[in-house]
């Protein structure tokens, strides 16, 4: 630990500000409150602040971030936006540093977010120990009032002098560039710093009845508690809690086009699970609609799902959500205590301490997570009123390399990006999509012609485990649009027919005119080595139909298969699952023999933006293909 006089410290800050090669951001006053912002002189810096309105997450995941620019005057021109400017943030409290570590774990895992990484690498963090405790802060209860890594320098303001703990080489370099009169800290100084830290943590205790280690179990056991409803009744759904939270980082991505209709940008912005449209898909369906569900989800994500996924409780006790929630229902202390009061006994779980410094150093990016690859439409065929077929080839000539059941994110620059299931078997240089026209992107796609260009990201998701299906009897049950992803697997199976046992295909739609892949269906009907049946809910006047009439479940008793040994692959609209699965289970099919493909709003495709969550799982990463056994107990899976 080093010591520097206050005067010299302020000179250090002013020297930093003078240096135009580095942006200096620090905590300063805004009215009676505090914010992180650009410093114009050292006397603006307020190391005595209690808490800022927004956490420093805005430096690594900005409120509005231009990810890339595009130019529609060229066939496909997309350019990533770089953020090379070096920057230092001064005054970050320990709990916020821990929150940044949590963000690192999330954004720098297997799919490294290149934008986030660049901002992290360009930023030096100068932390400061807490002098004043905000009214609603409870980092003492959470154990986040102290941190010994994750910063380049850590300051403790002792009045006439500042204690500096050097965290990294970069921090040391910065200090030595401007400061030439550092003294060693005396044991007295070290003790003073320790006392300051302990005092702050002692003050930041608000009687939390259950420590973070117990949140997981508490939340799981009390998923259906009345507390959720009674709290949610007061919730305004305004999104404030997630926006001001240092450990909330869900985002949305939208395209904006300029007045010239030619140039534009793709922008990432903060989003939150408390907002009603968070889980809304193109067709208009909202998968987490009730306020109770949304309110409960936030706590479960922080106290249960993220701990399960990454090993930490995503709450650092800063108190921001609590102090800024207008109806005052966001406070985790109150909520946990309310639930604990009526809960049965709970057990503690493991919380692993975070070490992400190595992640920061080792994380590399081969290609951008967000940048779409140019691809060309080879064939465009209108299948029905609402669905169009596309055959697409990547411009770099490489095959997509997908598994049946996976999906891509297709970009039409200026309109947006949409997740579409891949409909072809993985062979050849091209891949096939069937797109239903529901919104901006899909409507625009429907007007495009062969030769037009689109952007492709992916393939994403967990597809069908083809290896596990080898040698087995298979029963395909496809409802409506569900036939699209299933077709990729069906064609794979039919192409390798000898590798599989009995194959039965059941396909149902609402009406004959909605049937897709008419030619292939005709082929399936004539094949002797598979059993094929089709049905429509009804056959209106003027349409002709030679199959069964009734909902798809009517075909199940007609099909010949051994429920005990057959694997069922079921894909269709949400309502279909309930009835089909019920019928299959009633026939004695084991749960682990049923495979489903679930749909949610998928945006990033890599488990980062948060929109596709079903309780604690990400449909884009853990699915969309699931074994029924793994999802049957998720309350949000089959609504």
């Amino acid at each position, binding site marked *: 630990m080093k010591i520097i006089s206050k005067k010299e410290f302020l000179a250090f800050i002013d020297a930093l500000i003078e240096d135009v090669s580095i942006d200096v951001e620090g905590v300063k006053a*805004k*009215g*009676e*409150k505090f*914010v992180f912002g650009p410093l114009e002189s050292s006397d603006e810096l307020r190391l005595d602040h209690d808490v800022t*309105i*927004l956490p420093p997450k*805005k430096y690594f995941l900005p*409120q*509005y971030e231009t990810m890339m620019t595009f130019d529609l005057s060229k066939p496909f021109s997309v350019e990533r936006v770089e953020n090379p400017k070096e920057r230092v943030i001064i005054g970050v409290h320990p709990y916020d540093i821990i929150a940044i570590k949590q963000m690192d774990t999330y954004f720098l895992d297997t799919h490294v977010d290149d934008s986030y990484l660049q901002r992290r690498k360009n930023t030096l963090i100068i932390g400061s120990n807490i002098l004043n405790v905000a009214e609603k802060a409870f980092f003492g209860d959470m154990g986040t009032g102290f941190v010994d890594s994750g910063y380049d320098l850590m300051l403790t303001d002792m009045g006439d002098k500042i204690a500096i703990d050097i965290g990294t080489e970069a921090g040391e370099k910065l200090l030595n560039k401007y400061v030439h009169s550092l003294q060693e800290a005396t044991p007295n100084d070290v003790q003073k710093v320790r006392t300051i830290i302990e005092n702050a943590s002692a003050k930041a205790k608000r009687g939390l009845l259950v420590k973070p280690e117990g949140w997981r179990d508490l939340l799981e056991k009390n998923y259906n508690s009345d507390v959720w409803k009674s709290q949610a*009744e*007061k*919730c*305004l*759904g*305004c*999104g*404030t809690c997630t*926006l*001001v939270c240092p450990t909330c980082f869900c985002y949305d991505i*939208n395209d*904006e*086009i*300029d*007045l*010239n*209709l030619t140039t534009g940008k793709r922008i990432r*912005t*903060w989003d*939150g699970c408390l*907002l*009603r*449209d968070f889980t809304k898909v193109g067709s208009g369906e909202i998968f987490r609609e009730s*306020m109770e569900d949304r309110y409960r989800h936030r706590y479960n994500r922080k106290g249960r799902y993220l701990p399960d996924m990454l090993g930490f409780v995503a709450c650092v006790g800063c108190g921001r959500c609590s102090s*800024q929630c*207008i*109806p005052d229902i966001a406070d985790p202390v109150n909520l946990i205590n309310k639930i604990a009061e009526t809960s049965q006994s709970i057990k503690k779980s493991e919380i692993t301490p975070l070490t992400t410094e190595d992640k920061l150093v080792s994380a590399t990016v081969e290609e951008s997570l967000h940048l779409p690859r140019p691809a060309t439409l080879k064939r465009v065929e209108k299948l029905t009123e609402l669905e169009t077929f596309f055959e697409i080839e990547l411009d770099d000539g490489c095959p997509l390399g997908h598994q049946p059941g996976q999906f891509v994110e297709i970009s039409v620059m*200026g*309109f947006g990006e949409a997740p579409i299931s891949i409909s072809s078997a993985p062979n050849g240089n091209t891949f096939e999509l069937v797109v239903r026209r529901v*919104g*901006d992107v899909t*409507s*625009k796609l429907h*007007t495009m012609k062969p030769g037009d260009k689109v952007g492709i990201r992916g393939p994403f998701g967990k597809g069908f485990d083809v290896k596990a299906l080898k040698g087995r009897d298979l029963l395909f049950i496809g409802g409506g649009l569900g036939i699209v992803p299933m077709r990729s697997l069906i064609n794979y199976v039919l192409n390798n027919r000898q590798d599989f046992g009995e194959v039965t295909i059941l396909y149902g739609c609402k009406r004959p005119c909605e049937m897709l892949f008419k030619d292939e269906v005709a082929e399936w009907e004539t094949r002797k080595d598979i059993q094929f049946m089709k049905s429509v809910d009804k056959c209106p006047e003027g349409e002709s139909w030679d199959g069964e009439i009734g909902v798809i479940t009517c075909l199940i008793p007609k099909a010949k298969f051994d429920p005990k040994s057959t694997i069922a692959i079921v894909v269709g609209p949400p309502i279909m699952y309930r009835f089909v699965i019920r019928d299959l289970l009633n026939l004695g099919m084991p749960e682990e023999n049923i495979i489903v493909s679930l749909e949610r709003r998928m945006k990033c495709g890599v488990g980062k933006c948060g929109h596709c969550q079903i309780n604690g799982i990400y449909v884009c990463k853990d699915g969309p293909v699931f074994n029924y056994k793994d999802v049957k107990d998720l309350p949000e899976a089959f609504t």
Partner: protein
Amino acid sequence: MKPKVAFFDFAGCEGCQLQIANLEEDVLKLIDIVEIVSFREIMKEHSDEYDIAVIEGSIMRPMDEERLKKIRKNAKILVALGACACIGSVQRMLNQWPIEESKKIVYNNFKETKNNPYFDNFSTKAVDEVVKVDAYVPGCPIDRNEFARVLVALVQGKKPPIPDYPLCVECKKKENVCLFELGKFCMGPITRAGCDAICPTHGNECEGCRGFISHPEERAYTEVLEKYGLSVEEILQRKTMFTYRYVEKTKKEAKKDE
């Protein structure tokens, strides 16, 4: 072929059309992507052939209703511009009383107002209470950049990007100090975002001029206002200023239940 756009105004202050002029140099970019065939406030020429009709102002007289219906027939797309057209704005407060009472107060039974179509007001109506509206640009006045975004979306064939979440989202992203903490009573939590929280950013309460979001948590919000010390009367004063349309609706629905 550039789409043809025509602007029309009814009962309003023309401030929303002024915002379009306030696009300044961007007006030149605007007329590159659309052809303005009628805009009474700034040009003499007029044509009855247009693809997009932009309507400012509320509908307050039968003669206005007729004019609007004719416009709707001519246009492929109709845009309601500003609070007067979208929800009725401040003149909607007239609907608190029978229209005859207001006419009496205003014109003192002056005989020339009888049987005179110019004075033949009925209660204030928003544009979609007379004809079908394809796109809305809310606000009093509109945000000119939002108008540009909506127009661009219409020309592209996209759904206009009007948010359906509360102002709080934009206010928080700007790191504003919440006005409730300063002892004020902001309507942000139930009002539609898209204005970038301009009023709270300047220290003034949101007055709801953009209308409510499609699913406002009104009950929870009223509870909050009561908790912070507003009387029922004071709460109603705020809810009736721009957003009387919603109060009217609640009154109507309450009557139906009776």
